[in-house]
C-alpha cells in the first residue's frame, strides 16, 4: 500500500475513472516516430507540457550532450505534432474532458522540465526502485523506458 500510494496520487486521481489505467496515447505521427525514435523510443507527447516540447525542439543542436538536429521543415512538423498532443492541452474523449496529463500533476506553470524523468510524478512512481536500477548494463539510463516497460512504445506502463 505504501508503494501504491504515490502512484494513485499521480495517476488514478488525475484522470477520469474510465481512463485510470496507465495508458498514454502512443505516437502516431510517422516523422516523429522515425526522427525521435533512433536514440531512444519516441516518448508520448502527453508526458510533457507544450512549453517543454518547444524548449526541447529549439535545443536539438545540444540535446542532452548530443547533436540531434533536424532540417527546419521536419523540426516544425514534429514540434507541431508534439505541442498539439502535449499533456497540458485540453482534450475531450466521450463526455469526459480534462486538462492535465497524468504525469503532469504537481507541475507548476513556472517549470519547464526537459525530462519526463525529472517530473515529480515520474520520480514518485520510481522511488521504490533499488539503488543502481537505472545504471544496470541492460538499462543504462532512466530514458530507457522500454528496458523495464515492455509495452512502453504502445503507451502501456502497467506492471509487467
Amino acid at each position, binding site marked *: 500500500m505504501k508503494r501504491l500510494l504515490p502512484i494513485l496520487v499521480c495517476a488514478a486521481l488525475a484522470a477520469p475513472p474510465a481512463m485510470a489505467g496507465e495508458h498514454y496515447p502512443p505516437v502516431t505521427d510517422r516523422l516523429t516516430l522515425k526522427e525521435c525514435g533512433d*536514440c531512444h523510443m519516441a516518448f508520448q507527447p502527453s508526458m510533457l507540457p507544450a512549453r517543454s516540447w518547444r524548449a526541447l525542439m529549439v535545443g536539438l543542436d545540444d540535446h542532452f550532450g548530443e*547533436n540531434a*538536429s533536424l532540417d527546419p521543415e521536419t523540426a516544425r512538423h514534429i514540434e507541431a505534432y508534439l505541442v498539439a498532443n502535449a499533456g497540458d492541452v485540453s482534450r475531450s474523449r466521450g463526455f469526459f474532458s480534462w486538462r492535465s496529463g497524468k504525469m503532469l500533476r504537481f507541475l507548476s506553470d513556472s517549470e519547464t522540465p526537459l525530462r519526463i524523468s525529472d517530473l515529480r510524478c515520474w520520480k514518485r512512481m520510481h522511488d521504490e526502485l533499488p539503488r543502481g536500477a537505472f545504471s544496470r548494463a541492460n538499462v543504462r539510463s532512466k530514458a530507457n523506458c522500454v528496458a523495464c516497460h515492455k509495452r512502453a512504445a504502445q503507451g502501456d506502463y502497467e506492471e509487467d
Partner: protein
Amino acid sequence: MITSTRNALLLSALAAVCLGAAPATAEPATLDAYARQAQAEDPSFGGFSAQRGETLFRARFASGKAETPACVTCHGDDPRMAGRTRAGKAIEPMALSVSPNRYGDIAKTEKWFRRNCDSVLGRACTAREKGDFIAFMTTQ
C-alpha cells in the same frame, strides 16, 4: 596525383562491376558522391583509405561534446556487433557485411555524419573522412 585519382575511380568502377556478384559487400552508392566531393574539396585527393577510416572510428577526441569522445562510444569497438546509444537503445552494426542496407541512402548517411561528427569532433567531417569511414566499413 592525377593517376592516383584515376586509379581510385578505376577501383570504384571495378567495385561497381563486382556489385552483381557480391551484393552483400557491394560498394555503397554514397561512396561515389563522397569521392566527387573530396576531389572538389582537395585536388590532391588520392582515393579513400580504409585504414584512415578505422583510425577515425577508434580515435578519442577532446574537441567535441564531453559525453561522446569517440565513434566507438556508441557504435562499440567491433563494427560487426551492435552498438548502443547513451539512452540504451541498440544500434545495428556498422559493418556493411552485417548491415547491407547501410550507406545507401545519402540523406540518412549525411544526417548522421552531420550530427555525429559535430558531437564527437566538434566540427563537420570532410568528404574524405566520410569516405574513409565508409571504406573501412565496407572491408568489415
